[in-house]
């Protein structure tokens, strides 16, 4: 039996909602299921904001969340009640049985459970207090109950709980007790629902490893596998966990990580370290990227390899730090003053995060340029099960081209060559001393603002990036769905592509000829491939999470064809239903036109 179960845990900040989600998906992945999950949390650490840990557990990896959940767990009714109708028929609703405050009519979850859904009242608070003496372990009680109700093996949970609370013996012990209390209560509860887990299917090929991992963690793993040397960063939601993970992992491999005083300092240090030959990176979000704009220009003109991982959030300004959005595309591709071309790649799933996270370093070195890996909060915090190959698919040291020169000739750091890529020397190399400057310069790197030189150097800096469109072992774009001419083509980027793919598959199921394309490389733009795809499509739909249609703008700047835009800025992932409706509409409009 194939498994396809979606569980949502909804609570208030401080209820441990997200932590419960982490443990649950850790346990499930440990059992061998494929998981995709995405959490929603408020900007305050505590207070009263809504938190949702939502995950879909499948036999084969899925790339988007379902519209309906099979199980809803409420740790705070005031937040969970609006989500009651997201539970499917015969799905389970697990909620706190009692209340310590007087409730108005409708203030309790039981008032909102539809006749087709199955109620599971649990004395969550009481079980927590009974088993641990405090009410803090309510989230773990709920996990115990889930495990008991869905007949999942306790060991996987115990392992995940122990992992979560390692170094905190008392908390781990309380966790154990709370878990057992929940499980015991489930044993006394009569199970009614038909939420059933099939056996997990192992798809691991020899040598490969399977892990349930978030987008940010995948980026980190990619960077580590590509041999990152130095990292400078400044905490910012939702990119912080990239830095946090690297802080743990890099020293283990002799790498160096420094928390700088701000993002300006961080990008500056990255450019410095890149100049010095290190594989260097920073991570940030929109506000930090804005601060970095000037120094990125320096990286472009200085032709310094550098990598910036950007996880977008709702903007502008401080905006919506804990909500997802894809509105930094303009900033990433065009941001900053002057003609400052750079490579921008945007993975569409967690596996892609791993690949882009590593390939970014290859590209930065190969084309001597800043590379921005553009993801968003949804992808950063989304968990998927990823199969990692036994050997990292990244080149260790790419095209540094030192000492390519004939003896006696003067070293030209910015030599104009046929492929527009100059020999790069790094400090410490004998005889190749040079200066990298933010001023326009000649081949030697000496300031020069002549018309000819600025034109030649501008051309060099733009043209050399074209080679990146043929960068080996890298998916620049990819087409899915029906081959040949189609009625509707969906083209999208980044985290939204998972929803586009699912909508496209559903549309095909409804008999609509349909295809989808993901574009990973945003700058330079793969005009050829995208044009070919769009020629096949009678209608082109571009769904993305921003108001302006930033990707559609980019598309239309490169391919002169009308497209239909589908924009959402709700701060949450796009709904598959919305895309599907639009596909249906476009397919129908075409039919209507034909009839006319």
């Amino acid at each position, binding site marked *: 039996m194939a498994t396809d179960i979606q569980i949502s845990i909804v609570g208030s900040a401080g209820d441990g909602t997200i932590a419960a989600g982490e443990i649950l998906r850790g346990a499930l992945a440990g059992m061998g299921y494929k998981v995709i999950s995405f959490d929603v949390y408020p900007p*305050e650490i505590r207070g009263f904001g809504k938190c949702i840990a939502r995950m879909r557990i499948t036999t084969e990896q899925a790339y988007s969340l379902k519209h309906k959940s099979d199980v809803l767990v409420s740790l705070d009714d005031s937040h969970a009640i609006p989500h009651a109708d997201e539970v499917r028929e015969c799905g389970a609703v697990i909620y706190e049985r009692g209340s310590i405050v007087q409730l108005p009519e409708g203030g309790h979850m039981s008032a909102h459970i539809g006749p087709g859904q199955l109620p599971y009242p649990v004395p969550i608070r009481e079980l927590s207090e009974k088993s641990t003496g405090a009410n803090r372990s309510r989230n773990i009680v709920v996990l115990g109950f889930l495990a008991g109700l869905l007949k999942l093996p306790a060991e996987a949970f115990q392992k995940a709980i122990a992992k979560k609370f390692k170094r905190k013996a008392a908390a781990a012990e309380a966790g154990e007790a709370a878990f057992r209390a929940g499980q015991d209560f489930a044993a006394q509860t009569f199970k009614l629902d038909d939420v059933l887990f099939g056996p997990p299917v192992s798809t691991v090929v020899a040598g490969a490893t399977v892990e349930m991992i978030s987008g940010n963690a995948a980026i980190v793993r990619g960077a580590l596998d590509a041999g990152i040397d130095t990292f400078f960063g400044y905490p910012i939601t939702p990119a*912080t966990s990239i830095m946090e993970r690297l*802080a743990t992992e890099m020293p283990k491999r002799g790498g160096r990580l420094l*928390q700088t005083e*701000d993002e300006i300092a961080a990008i500056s240090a990255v450019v410095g370290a890149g100049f010095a030959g290190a594989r260097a990176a920073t991570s940030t979000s929109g506000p930090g990227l804005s601060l970095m704009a000037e120094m990125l220009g320096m990286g472009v003109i200085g032709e310094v390899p550098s990598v910036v991982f950007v996880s977008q959030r709702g903007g502008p300004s401080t905006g919506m730090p804990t909500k997802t959005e894809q509105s930094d595309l303009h900033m990433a591709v065009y941001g900053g003053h002057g003609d400052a071309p750079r490579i921008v790649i945007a993975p569409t799933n967690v596996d892609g995060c791993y690949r882009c996270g590593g390939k970014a370093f290859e590209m930065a070195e190969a084309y001597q340029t800043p590379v921005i890996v553009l993801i968003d909060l949804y992808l950063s915090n989304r968990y998927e099960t990823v199969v990692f190959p036994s050997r990292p698919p990244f080149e260790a040291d790419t095209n540094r081209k030192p000492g390519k020169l004939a003896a006696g000739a003067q070293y030209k750091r910015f030599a104009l060559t046929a492929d527009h890529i100059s020999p790069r020397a790094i400090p410490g190399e004998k005889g190749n001393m040079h200066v990298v400057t933010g001023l326009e310069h000649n081949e030697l790197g000496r300031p020069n603002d002549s018309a000819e030189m600025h034109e030649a150097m501008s051309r060099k800096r733009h043209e050399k990036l074209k080679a990146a469109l043929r960068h080996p072992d890298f998916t620049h774009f990819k087409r899915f769905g029906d081959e040949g001419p189609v009625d509707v083509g969906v083209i999208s980027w980044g985290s939204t592509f998972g929803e586009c793919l699912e909508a496209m598959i559903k549309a095909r199921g409804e008999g609509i000829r349909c295809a989808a394309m993901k574009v990973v490389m945003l700058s330079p733009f793969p005009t050829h491939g995208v044009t070919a795809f769009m020629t096949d499509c009678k209608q082109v739909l571009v769904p993305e999470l921003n108001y302006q249609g930033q990707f559609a703008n980019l598309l239309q700047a490169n391919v002169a064809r009308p497209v239909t835009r589908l924009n959402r800025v709700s701060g949450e992932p796009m709904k598959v239903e919305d895309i599907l409706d639009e596909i249906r509409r476009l397919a129908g409009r075409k039919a209507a036109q034909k009839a006319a």
Partner: protein
Amino acid sequence: MGEIKPIYLEEKLKEIEESGRLDYRSKTLPTWCPGCGYFSIVEAVAASLCELGIPNENAVMVSGIGCSSRFPFFVNTYGMHTLHGRALPVATGVKTANDALTVVAVGGDGDGFAIGGGHVPHAARRNVDMTYLLFDNGIYGLTKGQTSPLSAVGFRTPTSPYDNPDRPLNALLMLLSHGASWVGQAYAGRPDHLHRMITQAMAHRGFSYLHILSPCVTFDKTHRTYQNLGMQVRDLPADHDPTDRLAAMREAMNDATPALGLYYREERPTLGDALDGLVEKAGGELPGKPAAKPARKAAKR
């Protein structure tokens, strides 16, 4: 064991209501974690504004980004919640535009000494007539607990999983050397003293810097806890002379047992005074200024 005489609620409530300090609280309940020391600061600021008789509309709270920077939302005055690290320049702008305002910049240690560190010396040396309340919890709370420039050596956080190798900077010493004209330190766990210090800082004419030690109850369970801070803090020696900058620096050097109280105070022209002087020098005419802070002058007497 404290007083054992019972507290009679309605008498207490009457006293609080009559004091008028509740008028300085916003309607919104603060969203900090229960137990956070910052609650203590809101209470103290409200009480100080009340005690000094500053009308709500004449006060401006300016903050950057961080847990502490949510502060302007919880007091009933004008406020600005600006960019990370940029509270001081924005506050300088506010004060420069209108001297009659009581400007209070608030922010955390990361906001003030990491990303915004470059702004501190300049606000201090210019002697902008404002109060800078530095909420020092030694951690980045809003991004869930990374090290800050004021985190202790050896402090473990997600970005310093093998201990923090950096030593914390000595904020008091910095401010003293940057030329802040009023420098003091308080602790959130001593609400009474905190309130008295804030009142003094606000009453001071010039750049007053109050460093407030506070625990982060959610992300720091090892270092700066109520328990540890309670044991570490001491009072400044009774004979400390707050006009002696060197003595103040000597006290500030002892960061193992932080001393609470007024370290240093001097009276000197503010940025506003200097700018007025320039106008005078240039032969210009000062625009009709509103009477400068009558209430504060009264309070100082």
